[in-house]
Structures are given as structure tokens and as C-alpha cells.
């Protein structure tokens, strides 16, 4: 089957039931999305499908239709997405393992709502677990990114 990830089309030959996460990680060597739980409880595997946040560990690849974006496709070290830049500015990451998922959830939130209040942030981000407990800085970074997006759009 065909899978478009970060703008590149890939031919993949796997079981339809294989979760998108494992196609990305083990077939395409795209390791930014992380495995944390496999049951849509931690958010480490969050990617975008047609711009919507999705837990790639729980979506069979056979059901994916549309463009997949991973953390690698959001921005690169030399050209970071506004959300990634805010994350660096606030020095959010500790072990860093959950952060690709956190950033993808935040980017999707800000795409829909460039001015989220604390409650909107809580709602959008509570599916993403961080065992290092970086939440206060995540919240601050989301707000900075939101402001930067609004300023750019103004």
C-alpha cells in the first residue's frame, strides 16, 4: 500500500492491521514518534493525519488515508516549527521521550485554536503523559507559541 509521510510517498508491504506507529518506526525508520503504551493512553506516538492529532499506536495502517506528518516533518533542527522553537525557548524537555508527542499535540491544538486558555490546554494535552513532569514548562511553551502564531498572523 501507499503511505504519504512528511510529503514523501512510501510503498509499504505489511499486514493491514499493523499500527501506523510500527510502520513508521520499523518499516520506514522514522523514529521520532515514540512507543510508550500501545493502547492510546500516553500520547508518545502522536502524529498528524491530515492535520489532526492521532495516536499512531492504535490506528491500523490500512485505515490511514491522507497525509501523515511526524515530528520530523513538523520542523527540523535548522528550521524549527514555531512550537518546537517555543519548546527550546522554555527548555521544556528533560528525558525528552514524550516530547515529540507533546509537540505534535500542541501543534494540532494551535492549528485549531491559536488562543487557547488553560482549560483548552488541559483538554488538548491531557492525553500526553510526561513521567518527567514537565507540564508547567509545556504550558508556558504552548502559550508562547500561541502568541508567536498570533503575531505572525496579525
Amino acid at each position, binding site marked *: 500500500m501507499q503511505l504519504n509521510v512528511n510529503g514523501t510517498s512510501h510503498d509499504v508491504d505489511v499486514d493491514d492491521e499493523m499500527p501506523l506507529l510500527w510502520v513508521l518506526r520499523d518499516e520506514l525508520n522514522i*523514529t521520532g514518534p515514540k512507543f510508550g503504551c500501545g*493502547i492510546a493512553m500516553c500520547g508518545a506516538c502522536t502524529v498528524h493525519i491530515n492535520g489532526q492529532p492521532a495516536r499512531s499506536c492504535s490506528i491500523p495502517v490500512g485505515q490511514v488515508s491522507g497525509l501523515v506528518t511526524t515530528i520530523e516533518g513538523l520542523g527540523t533542527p535548522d528550521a*524549527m516549527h514555531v512550537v518546537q522553537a517555543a519548546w527550546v525557548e522554555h527548555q521544556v*524537555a*528533560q*528525558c*525528552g521521550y514524550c516530547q515529540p508527542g507533546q509537540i505534535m499535540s500542541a501543534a494540532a491544538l494551535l492549528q485549531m485554536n491559536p488562543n487557547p486558555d488553560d482549560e483548552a490546554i488541559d483538554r488538548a494535552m491531557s492525553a500526553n*503523559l*510526561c513521567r*518527567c513532569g514537565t507540564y508547567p514548562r509545556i504550558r508556558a511553551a504552548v502559550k508562547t507559541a500561541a502568541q508567536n502564531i498570533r503575531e505572525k498572523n496579525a
Partner: protein
Amino acid sequence: MSTLGKITRRAFVIGSAAIAGGVLFGVYKYKQPYPNPLEKGLAQGDTALTPYVLINATGVTIIVPRAEMGQGVKTTLAALVAEELDIDVQNVKVEHGVPSNAYFNAAVLEEGVPFPPQDDSAMANMARNFMHVPAKFFGVQVTGGSSSTVDAFEKMRMAGATAREALLLAASAKLNLPKNTLRTDNGEVITKDGQRISYTELASLAASIELPDDVKLKPRSQWKQIGRPVPRVDMVEKCTGTATFGIDVLQNEMLYATVKVNPNLGAKCNSYKANNAVNMKGVKAILPLGDIGVAVVATNTWYAFKASEKIEFDWAKTDYAQTTDALFASAIAAFTDEHQDSQMRSDGDVEAILGQAGDATIHREYRAPLLAHATMEPMNATALMKNGELDVWVGTQMATYALSEASRVSGIAKENIRIHTTYLGGGFGRRLEMDFIIYAVMVAKQLEGTPVKVTWTREEDMTHDSYRPFAVARFEGVTDGDSVSALDVKISSPSVMESQMSRLGVSIPGPDSTIVQALWDQAYIIENYRVTGYRVPMGIPVSSWRSVGASQNGFFNESMIDELAIKANADPIEMRLGLVTHQPTRNVLQTAAKMANWGREIPPKHGLGVALVTSFGVPVAEIIEVVNTPRGIKILNVYVVADVGIAIDPLNIEAQLISAVNFGLAAAMMGEITLLNGKVQQTNFHSYDAIRMHQSPVIHTKILENGERIRGIGEPGTPPAAPALANAIFAATGMRIREMPFNKHIQFV
């Protein structure tokens, strides 16, 4: 080095060594107690150099021989070298080690040992000594901080200063100018008239320089990087998905595997039937894992996961407690003379005062359950055995042990093994264990020539941990006026040290002071004060869990102190201050009180709770504000003050405090591992969750530097979180919770 013989008062001497195209600066160990294989190829009389700085034509590399698991050690330790070397840490490469050079890498591994190098047979002795200073032991292992920060604080600065000195001397020789007319700045030597030569240009010349032995460190007033926020060198990688964790390691022609091990921890796999799994799509092999389980090897991790579910097992049982009730019964049963492990405090005459007080004595019992580490990245390792050599890629907190274990399991000599340490997706003590490394090597050994990445499912990870021990604490206290006249503390728990060391093949006589950690060693001065530890016989594997014994004992002790204050009708902070004379400890408590505006009018349904715990030498005060809403308790604010002696990087310390508080709160609110039929019942984050964004409070931090010396900060923020929360809940609701997790008794928003 010519200086080597002169220095006898120090355990190390700074040196340099020429290597192809560059120069290494670092620490020579001397008086090695065993023949050091690294010495091959070194000149007579020299011992191996543990390198911290590598300068060659391509630039400056700083080697940080500690695992980066989130605590920022890669940046803070590199900044120590960079400070003295006069180069911005952002302009250097920071590496854990250089795997391509065996000599070099092995030297780095040596440095990864949590104690001075010793031969294996001396291990027990050494560990025995450490039993009495577990804070030191665990500080080094778990955080790379505590005592190792003290050690590194000097060593790494010296390496930087020595390298700088050599570069200055090299420039002096090259330009034929007196050294005192030269200065350094951001990677260059600068002459009086402004001529600049980069360090890289001077590297090969510097390698031949005879080093002086009187290199001086910068005074604090000249620090430009230490004491200031330094952007983490791993931050951009970690925010762009380009950081390599163990689970991300890629090798050509790699296969993917998972393991299924007996959930009766430590017991054997009697037999298994894999007929239904072996022909499943993608499956390459189903291999025995010693006698405790199997590995399923496939072309994709998910195929391996799927097939592993189809294998039928006959698991042997264990002979330890099979249920949670039985665990706690074993703790209660251990409150006997026969099981007494230590009595590390016995001041005054507790018996007499308790006897006099009679019915006025306050008796309390508290409990804490088993906890899983639940690092965000499940256990994994990748291994390749080929042509009599072995490569292991793994995020480990104990690289040296990984090397020994890899050698033992594979039968390959250590010098033919390379351990490549990746980023750790969380450690918290879990990655001190060797199981995930051993399993990967077992698989690689059966599939010679093929690299295999072995990834555990979350279910396997959660049910095959070595857990934070369960514990029961019993207190008897007597108040006198608004103070405490007697406190008798009894604590019963399995021994982390015994369990952990047994897995490394070492048995240790003598008491385990982690059982009474944060009970016997607190700043409180009470006239009649006794702390007795009781050891529950070994059963389910237990291990270090962020802050070790303090993680449960802090809760017990600080809840009891709060209960005594309430009984005495005393202000909880005033009463504590009345029991503490150690000035830095008083300061953290007073500062927290000020930050929280303690004593202010509290809105209805709100409550403030305080706790003060010293662990790993760091006094930490936390004040928590909660509100009791119709949907449950909401944690609004946490005020946390810690004294670290010297703050290398305040922004990173703040991050560590925030992390430690949330870690402690998660355990207090909802952390619980239970046993049924000998097996752990929680399998994934649906049944073993942690604090999430909507529950995470605002955390106000303040770092003080009045302590006697520099301290690590990865753990000490955790222990006060649970008691401060329990005390705040009591203040808001009148409900006293004496058992973790609190959600057994009260709901959280």
C-alpha cells in the same frame, strides 16, 4: 606524566595524552588496585587517562561520562569543563564517549562506575561500606549528582583548566611570547596585540607540553557559565525527534524482537508451546531466554508483539507473598527483634517518656505500596554479536555493569565488547537493572551476525519491574506544650540494597540504611528520639526508585510531625522550627513559608500543608495549597525551596525540582502496584497512571545556596511532595490519609 609521582595527596592527577591528530585532557587514576587493560599501549608508568576534553583539528569535544536521563547532566557537567577552558559550551561537541576508540571508550566506562574502580571481588566489601552511606551511593548512581557532583565539580573543572593551561603554553612556545602576556577567550588564545589562535590550531603542539602541576581554578566571581542558565545541549534534538534513545537505534539488516518472561518474578518457565506463533507473519525465530521465558524475533516489533501473545506458557510459581495483603502482613510480621535491621538513632530515654505519657501517647500507623518506575521509554536494548565481538546499544545507568554482564552472558572478553550508551527515556532507578541488557545479549548470541533490537511491551515492562518496596511505619509520639518530647519510629520494609545487590551476584551483611533513610537522619532534634528499622525477608524484587527510602519515609515522618503539631495545637511550621537548629534547613522552611504567605487568611475549602525532608544532603521544604471542589481535590500551588550548596545551573535545578515534585505527587495521588496470585496486576497506563496536565499544579521554586557543599538535585524534591499534599488535604477537609495512594480515600480532580 612526569607529575604523576609527585602527587600523593590526591586520588587523581590531571594529564594529557597525544592521540592521532589531537590531544586528550583528563584525569589519570593512579594506584589502580587491579591490572588495567586500558594501560596496553600506554607508556611505562602511566595509567589510563579518563578523558574529558578532546581537541583536534575539527574542534573541541567534551566527554561527559554520565548517562543523560533527563537530569541535564550532559549540559551541566560539560559546562564545568567549558567554564575553565574558556569556551562557550554551545560551541563544543558533547559526547558520552567515543565508541570508535576502544581505549578511549573503556576509560569513559570506567568513569561510569558509581564508585572508585575496584576489582569484582572487592565489590562486596565496597558495597558493605556504602551501606552506611547510601545517600552517597545512590546519589552517584541515580542522579549522577549528589556526591558525584562534588567529585565532578572539581575533576571536570580541573580538566578544563589544565587543557587551557596547556594551550596557553603551546601558544607561548609557538609565538615565542611570555605566557603571562596571553589570555584566552571563547576557544582562542589571544595576544596583547589582538592576534588570535584557535585551540584547534594549537592542539597537536599542546599534546607535547609538559604540564605544570599547579593549575588553578577560576574564582567564583569569574564564572561565566557556572551558576547561570545554560541552554541544554540536548534540547533541540529532543524537540525535533532527532535524539537517539535506545529504542531508536538503527542497524543494517536489523531484526526486531520482544520478550515474554515469567510474571512470577524470578521463577522459571517450565515449558512453552509456540505452534500458533511460529508461522505468524513476520516471525523469524522463537528463542528460549535462559530458563525464564522466550524471545520472539521478527521483521517488525509489532509482529513480534503479536506472536508473543499466541505462545502458551507453563510458568513456575514463586514462594514469596502472592497477594498485596500478604505483602503487608509480611511487613507487620517483621516488627520483631529477630528482624531488626538497624537502630541508627537512639537519643534520650524514649521508653520512659512513653511510659509516663500513657494514654496521652499518640500511636499512628502509615503504609506505602509497591511502585513501578514506569519510565516513558519501555525497556529495550539492541545487540549484535559478530566475529567474536559484541556491540550493545542501550540506555543504561550502569555502563560498567552492562559491560560485565554482557561479557558474562556472551562469553566474550570485555575488551571485545562495546557498550554504546544512548539517551535514556527516563531512568528513575529502573535503568540500574541489567535484565533488559542481558536479554538482548541472549538473543544476539543465538543469532550471530544479525543485529537485534529487543523492545519490551509496556505490559512486560510494568509487570517485570523491580519495584519501590512496600513499607509500614509505626510511630509513638508524645507532645509537650507546643513541642514534641518523645518520638519512637519503627519502620518495616524489604531491603533495596539486598535485593538489588543479589541481582548483581553480591550478598551484603550488615544493615541497610535505606530502610530508615529520611527517618533517622532528619534535622529534628527531639530529646527522646529512636528510629528502628526492620527488614522484611527478600521476596518480590525491589529496587531504587527516585529518592529510594525517602520516597515513602518522607511521607510517614512528615505526616506524623503534622499530626503531632495538630495534637499540640501548634503551628506546623513553628513547631518544626522549634525542633531544628541547622541553619540552612531552617532557611528553606522559612523561605517556603514566606513564598506561600503562610499564616494568611485561607479561603473556605482551601488548605495549606507543609513538609520538610532532607535527603541526599539537601533540605527541601514544600508547601502545597489545595482546594476541595465538588469534583474532588485540586492541587493549586506548590512552593518548593531547596538548598543545593552551589547551584551549577539554576534553570536546570528548577526543572529538576518541578519534575521531582510531580513525580512525588503522582505516586501520592494514584501510584499503586498490587499483587494477585503472585503477579503484578497493573499492566499499562490505564491502571497505573501518573499526573497529567490538568492535574499539574503551579510550582514555585526557590534555590538556596547556604549548604556546606555542592549537592545533586535529581531526587530530593520528591519526598516532601506526598506529606505536604496529605497535610494540605487534612487542612482543607479534616481527613487524615495515612496510606498511599490517596485516591483510595479521596477523589482528585
